[in-house]
C-alpha cells in the first residue's frame, strides 16, 4: 500500500492522528473535517510529526481458498474464494526536534490506539471503534472502521535535543495493527439515494467490489424492495415484507415511521433503534442484497411511500 499519501487515524476520544505531516501542526490537514475532531500533531514546531513508512494488509483482505483433491484423479476441485477480515499493520517514524516533543507525539499516538481497544465485538453496544483514513492520488478519501488488534509499540535509541544538523532528536519507530470487520474499503463521502414510492433509483458504486447499503423504507404497510442481482444483473433480488405466510404479519403491525434495513448484518428495526421488523419478512422470497461494483437500481412497490438508500462506494484496497 502506498505510504506517501495522506493517512490518518480517527478515534472517538483522542482526536485524529494525521500522518506524513512533519510541520508540527496538522491543523487543516484532517481527512474527515466533518467529524470536527482535534488533530495531532498540533502546536509543535516544524520538524515534528509522524512519518508513515510501511503499511501491510491494506491492499486487500486475505483470501479463504478452499479446495479438494479430485477423487482418484489428477487435479482438484477449487471452490469459491472468500475474503477474510482485513488485518492492517502500520509502521513508521516518530520524528521530533526535542525529546519532550517526541514523548508528546508518542503519547498521543499510544492513547489513540488504546482508545480503540474495543471492549465489545463489532456491532455490539459496547463497541468502540476508530476510522483509518487515507486518500490515494486522484481518488476520494477512503476509510476502514477499525479496532486495535495488536498493541502500539515505539522503539529506538534515546537522543538529546538537536543531535543532528536538522535538529532531529533521534526518531523512534512506531508500530501497531488494526483490524476491520469488513474486507472492503469504503469511500468516506457516502451516497444517499432517495426513491419515491413505486419508484426506482440508481445506487452508485464507483469502486471495484460490492458494498452493503443501509436502507430506510418509509412505510405504512406491506412492501417489496427490489435490488440488483448478486453478479450485477439489473434485477434479481428482492425483499418482501408483510406478504409472508405468518398471518400475524400479514398485514404486519406498524411500529414506527420507517424500517431501517442493514443489509450486511441482516437486521430490520423500526426507526433504526426500535422494535424488530424482521418478523414480517417473507423468508422464502427475500434476500438481503449488496450493490455490486458499477452500481445498481433499487426500486419499491407496495405501501412504501419513500426509500432512502445510504451507501458507500467500495474498493478491495
Amino acid at each position, binding site marked *: 500500500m502506498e505510504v506517501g499519501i495522506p493517512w490518518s487515524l480517527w478515534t472517538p476520544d483522542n482526536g485524529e492522528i494525521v500522518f506524513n505531516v512533519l510541520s508540527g501542526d496538522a491543523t487543516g490537514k484532517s481527512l474527515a473535517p466533518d467529524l470536527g475532531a482535534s488533530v495531532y500533531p498540533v502546536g509543535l514546531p516544524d520538524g515534528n510529526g509522524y512519518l508513515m513508512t510501511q503499511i501491510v494488509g491494506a491492499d486487500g483482505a486475505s483470501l*479463504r481458498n478452499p479446495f479438494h483433491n479430485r*477423487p*482418484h*484423479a489428477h487435479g482438484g*476441485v477449487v471452490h*469459491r474464494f472468500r475474503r477474510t477480515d482485513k488485518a492492517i499493520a502500520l509502521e513508521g517514524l516518530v520524528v521530533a526536534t526535542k525529546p519532550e516533543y517526541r514523548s508528546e507525539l508518542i503519547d498521543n499516538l499510544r492513547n489513540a490506539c488504546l482508545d480503540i481497544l474495543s471492549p465489545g465485538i463489532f*456491532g455490539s453496544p459496547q463497541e468502540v471503534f476508530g476510522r483509518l483514513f487515507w486518500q490515494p492520488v486522484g481518488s476520494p478519501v477512503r476509510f476502514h472502521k477499525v479496532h486495535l488488534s495488536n498493541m502500539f509499540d515505539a522503539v529506538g535509541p534515546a537522543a538529546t535535543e538537536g543531535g543532528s544538523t536538522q535538529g532531529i532528536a533521534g526518531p523512534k519507530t512506531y508500530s501497531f495493527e488494526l483490524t476491520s470487520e469488513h474486507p472492503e474499503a469504503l469511500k468516506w463521502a457516502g451516497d444517499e439515494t432517495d426513491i419515491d414510492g413505486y419508484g426506482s433509483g440508481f445506487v452508485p458504486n464507483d469502486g471495484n467490489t460490492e458494498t452493503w447499503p443501509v436502507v430506510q423504507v418509509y412505510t405504512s404497510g406491506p412492501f417489496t424492495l427490489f435490488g440488483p442481482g448478486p453478479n450485477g444483473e439489473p434485477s*434479481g433480488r428482492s425483499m418482501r415484507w408483510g406478504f409472508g405466510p*405468518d398471518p400475524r404479519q400479514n398485514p404486519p403491525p406498524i411500529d414506527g415511521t420507517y424500517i431501517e434495513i442493514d443489509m450486511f448484518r441482516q437486521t430490520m428495526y423500526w426507526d433504526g433503534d426500535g422494535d424488530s421488523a424482521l418478523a414480517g419478512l417473507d423468508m422464502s422470497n427475500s434476500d*438481503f442484497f449488496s450493490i455490486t461494483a458499477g452500481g445498481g437500481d433499487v426500486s419499491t412497490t407496495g405501501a412504501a411511500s419513500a426509500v432512502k438508500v445510504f451507501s458507500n462506494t467500495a474498493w478491495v484496497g
Partner: protein
Amino acid sequence: MSLLLPVEYRLVLAADFYSPGDTDTDWVTTNIGMLDGIASGVDLQLIMNRSGQLTFDVPAEDPRVCALWDDGDPMVSCGNRAVKVWRRVGDIGPWSLIYGGRIWSLEDSGDGDTVSTRVTCFDPLKILEKRVCRDKHGCYFPNLETDPAKQPVRPNDGSVPFYLPLASGGSALQALDEGDWDGSYSSHDIGDSGEHGASFIIKSLIYRTIKFAGGNPGLPFTGAGHCHIELDAEDSSHIWAATAPLEIEFDQQTIAQAIQTLTGMLNVELSIEYIDKFDGVFIRLGGGPRLGSDKPDVILAYATEPNTTSAFSRTVSLDNMGNYFDLSGKKQAGYNHIEQDLTSQQKFLTFEQVENISGVESKKGLTALAKERLAMQKDPRNLVSVVPMPDLSPLPFDDYYLGDTITVEAGEGDYPVTREVIEGLQRVYGIHIVVDDDYGEVVQELIVSPQTGLV
C-alpha cells in the same frame, strides 16, 4: 442434477411461545433474527424415523445472540426459541425450508480470548420422548378413571394391567374418540376402516398426547399439551397410509419408544415435512409402509466412474443375522409362526431366533412380523457409508432424500480396490450435512444399505 451451482443456507431464529387464543394451537412462532452470518460449524443430521438434529456455534457476545428479546430472555435461549433452516441452490430465487426445530440445549464456553455458544436443536419428534402412551380416554397407568365404561379393558386372569389395547380391525376398540372440547380436535377421527397397523397407532398416540397431556385421565385440551406436530395436511399431502395389520401393547412407554418399536418392526416409515408455520407447528407428519422413490440415475461412485465420492466404508457382519424365526405372541394363545430360509442356512449355517413378542397377539401380526424379519436378516448386515464429493456429486434434497434408493458403486474394475465390487441400488437411511464456512454444503456422510438390509 443441479451440479456446480452454489448452495446457500439461511438460519432464521424464531421465538416460540405460549399465547392462548392467538392461534388454534395456543402457540405463536415469530421470526426474530438471522444467524447465518455468524453461525459456524453448521451440522445437520437427518435419519429416517428419528428426530432431525441441528448444531452450530455462535459468538456469545454478538447482539444477535445475547441481546434481550421482548420476553426478557436472550435472543438465543433454550426451549422457547427455534431455528428454521432454509436452503437454495444458486444465488437467486426462492428459498426452501429444509429443517425446523426447537433449541434443545445450549453450551456456553469461553477461553482466555473468546466466548461461544453451541446450539443444538431437535425437531418435534424429540418431545415425544417426554410423552407417555395413552389409551383413547387419555389414561396411562395408574388409571384413575372411575367410570367403568372408560376404564381400559382388563384381562380375565385377575392381573391389573395398565396396558393400552390397540387392536386392528376391531370396531369396539377403534371407535371414534370423542372430543370434549371444540376446536380443531373436536372430531378426533383417527381413521376409517382402511387404516390399520403401525401408522394408525402412531397417529393415534400423537393425537392423544396433544389432547390429553398433563393429566390422568387427560384434562381438556390446553395448548401446553401440543407437541408442534401437524398430523393432517389440508391438501392431503403426507397422509397416513394403511400398513400391515398389527396388534401391540405399550407398557409404560413413551411415544418415542413406541415409534422406535414400530418402525423397528418395519411396519411403518415416517414421512417428515418441515413447514413454515407460525402457530408453533414445525413439522407435518405422515406414515406409510414404505417411503421414498427409486432413483437409479442418481449415482455415487467410489474408485470408479463417475468418481463422485471421496470416501467410502462398508461393514459386512453376521452379527444381526437370522434365517430361522419362531415367534410367539405374549399370551401364546395356542399359536406361533415359523419362517426360515434354507438357502441362507446352507450358506451361512442356521441362525435361530426364537422369541416371545410382547404385545403382539394375533397370528396375522406374528406372521407378517416373521416374514419381514426374515427378509431383512437372512443375509449378513451390509452397511455402506459414502462421502459425496462437494460440487461434483448429486445434491441432497434436490436429487435424493431419505428413503430414496440410489445407485452406489465402488471399486468396479478387473481388480477391485474395495475387495468386492459394489454395484446396485442402495436405500438412503441417513444424511449428515455440514455447512462448511468456506465451500458450503457438504454431505459429511451418507448412510445407505441394500433395500432389504437392516441399518
